[in-house]
Every structure is written in structure tokens, then in C-alpha cells.
């Protein structure tokens, strides 16, 4: 009975569930997205962190886009640049509190110098930053800094 209670507690704890869901990626993920030229999905990839105020401020736009485009070949991906420590508490808590629906990935790299330029030569490393890529068309766009919903939609429209 006691074991059963534990199981219920674990399953009921959002923290436990979300901790299992956040997939960790490394820099090869960036190149895989770009090089998978048979993939005609438009990826809208936002680099953010829970502590970054302008990142958090623009998240609702990405969420809105995610909801609007679910039936289309468009995928919103939020790549977290939080600390490794945050992966077990702060990040899952944030996703649960804000009820984030878009896919959240965790960038598991310590040296950003190795991967920032893989995303874009124009990226200084400041977040928020947004990368749009449609591998089948070999088409990409990049924006450093906070976006408005209008600006985000403009970036997306380039790919139609």
C-alpha cells in the first residue's frame, strides 16, 4: 500500500512528469535540422531561458503561433539555455506554471562558442534569439533580440 501511495505521488507530481519530458540536445541537433533536406517542415526555433525577462515576455507569441499552426507543417521549438541545475526544478516548474504547449528542448552544451555560429554567423550570443529554418528549401532566417507578434509573423511569411 505504501509503495502504491508513492507511485501515485510520483505520477501526480508535475515536476516528475515534466522532468522526464525535457529532451536534451547538443550542437549536432542544429546541424541535423539544417541538413535534413527531405524535411519540409518549417522550424521556428527560439533560444531562451527562464530567467531572461525579454525571452519570457515574447514566449506568448511563440505559444500563439504554435496553437495557430498545429495542423500545418510548422513546428515551434523552444531551446532552453538555463543551467543544468535548472533542468530538474526551475525549468519544469516554469513549463508547468506557464502551461507551455510548444516543444521545449534543453541545450546541453557548456561552451556556447562551439555552437552559436552553427545557428548563425550574425548571432552575438545574446538571448532571446530566433532561428527559422526550412531544410527542404535550404531557407533560413535569423533574428537577435525581442520580437513582436507582427515581426514574428513577418519572419514566418517569408517561407510561404
Amino acid at each position: 500500500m505504501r509503495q502504491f501511495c508513492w507511485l501515485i505521488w510520483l505520477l501526480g507530481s508535475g515536476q516528475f512528469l515534466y522532468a522526464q519530458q525535457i529532451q536534451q540536445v547538443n550542437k549536432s541537433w542544429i546541424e541535423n535540422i539544417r541538413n535534413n533536406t527531405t524535411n519540409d517542415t518549417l522550424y521556428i526555433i527560439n533560444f531562451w531561458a527562464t530567467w531572461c525577462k525579454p525571452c519570457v515576455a515574447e514566449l506568448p507569441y511563440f505559444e500563439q503561433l504554435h496553437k495557430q499552426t498545429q495542423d500545418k507543417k510548422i513546428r515551434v521549438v523552444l531551446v532552453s539555455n538555463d543551467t543544468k541545475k535548472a533542468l530538474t526544478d526551475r525549468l519544469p516548474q516554469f513549463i508547468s506554471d506557464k502551461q507551455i504547449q510548444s516543444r521545449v528542448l534543453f541545450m546541453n552544451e557548456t561552451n556556447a562558442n562551439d555552437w552559436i555560429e552553427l545557428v548563425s554567423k550574425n548571432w552575438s550570443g545574446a538571448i532571446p534569439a530566433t532561428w527559422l529554418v526550412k531544410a527542404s528549401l535550404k531557407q533560413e532566417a535569423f533574428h537577435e533580440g525581442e520580437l513582436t507578434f507582427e515581426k514574428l509573423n513577418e519572419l514566418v511569411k517569408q517561407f510561404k
Partner: protein
Amino acid sequence: MMRKIHLILAASIFMLAAAFNINHTSGSKIGDKASDFSLKNVDGNMVSLADYKNAKGFIVIFTCNHCPFSQAYEQRIIELHQKYESKGYPVIAINPNDKDREPEDSYENMQKLAKEKSYPFVYLYDETQEIAKAYGATRTPHVFILQKSKKGNLVKYIGAIDDNYEDATAAQQKYVEQAVDALLAGKSISINQTKAIGCGIKWKKKPTE
């Protein structure tokens, strides 16, 4: 005739390339002369690079109070100053953030933090954000190592402090230390430009925004 067309074509390509370049030269590059400034330190005094008569150069770091990356590097910035000030390379910390967008980075809060953590280096407030723009700083922390020369203070390194923000002891490459050590030894810097994730500088909102 053909040759003329070729010449015109070459000239226009050159001009196009030049125009393109002009658009992309905001901020300083390696080898550029860095502009001096007069900014208010947390002790109330105005500070310029020209005040440092005996310095061989400077470790200019755009940083701030609120940013977790700046906080992660705070102790390392203190140690850089302790290690290199006596060798002629003091740390010059500059906060470029707009206090209206990030109240934690106000001048008063800078004073508080500097006192609390006993900053051994100057901590200057770039209220107009003009110095951050002139240097081409985009995030915090963002380092510019300058070397004094007859021509002025030349930019020798732009980038991150080291390659591991989460854990100083796990850093494989201490970019800033390697660069200053090379300058002190009269050698060329092997890695003179790096990138790191950081907090975007909180620029003042334009009136139209």
C-alpha cells in the same frame, strides 16, 4: 568595349561590397582603436581610460547586476582584476542597461552591489548606452581587451571570459587570461574572438516602440 564593361562591373561590385561593409561596421573590431569615455563610477567620480597613466591596457567588461551570466562570472571578474591590475591590465566594468527596462541595474543598485561584494575594480554606468554601442557590445558579460599603443587603445580580444560559465573549475579555455598573458609576453593572441550566450543588453525603448 568588353574590357570597359568588365571594369564597370568590377567597380560596381567593389562599391556594392564597400556599401555592404559600411552597414556592418557598427561597433569595434579586432585591431580598431577603441574610443575613450568619461563615465560615472559607483564612487561618484568620473572615470576615463586616459586617467590610467601607468596601465598597459584594459580588460573592459560590459556586465550588470541582474543577469545570471554576469552573476556567474562575478567572482571570476574580481579575480581577473586582482591578477592583472598589478601587471598593467585593470578590469573596467561597465553597466550599459537601461534602468527603466531593468530596475535592478540602476546606478543606486550598482552602488549597493559594488559595496556588498567589495568590487576592487571600477564599476561604471553607461547611462546613454553610447559606449556600449561604440564598442559593439550586445550582451552581458561581453569582454573587450584593449592594449595601449602610440595610436591609442587598440582592441585585441572580443568575447567571453572562458568556455564554461556554469563551473569555473571546469573551464578548459580561459580566453581572457590567455589573451592578456599573450599581450604581456609580447606574443600574438591565439584565440582573439569568441562567443557566449549572454543577456541581451537592455536598450532604451525608442519613442515609437
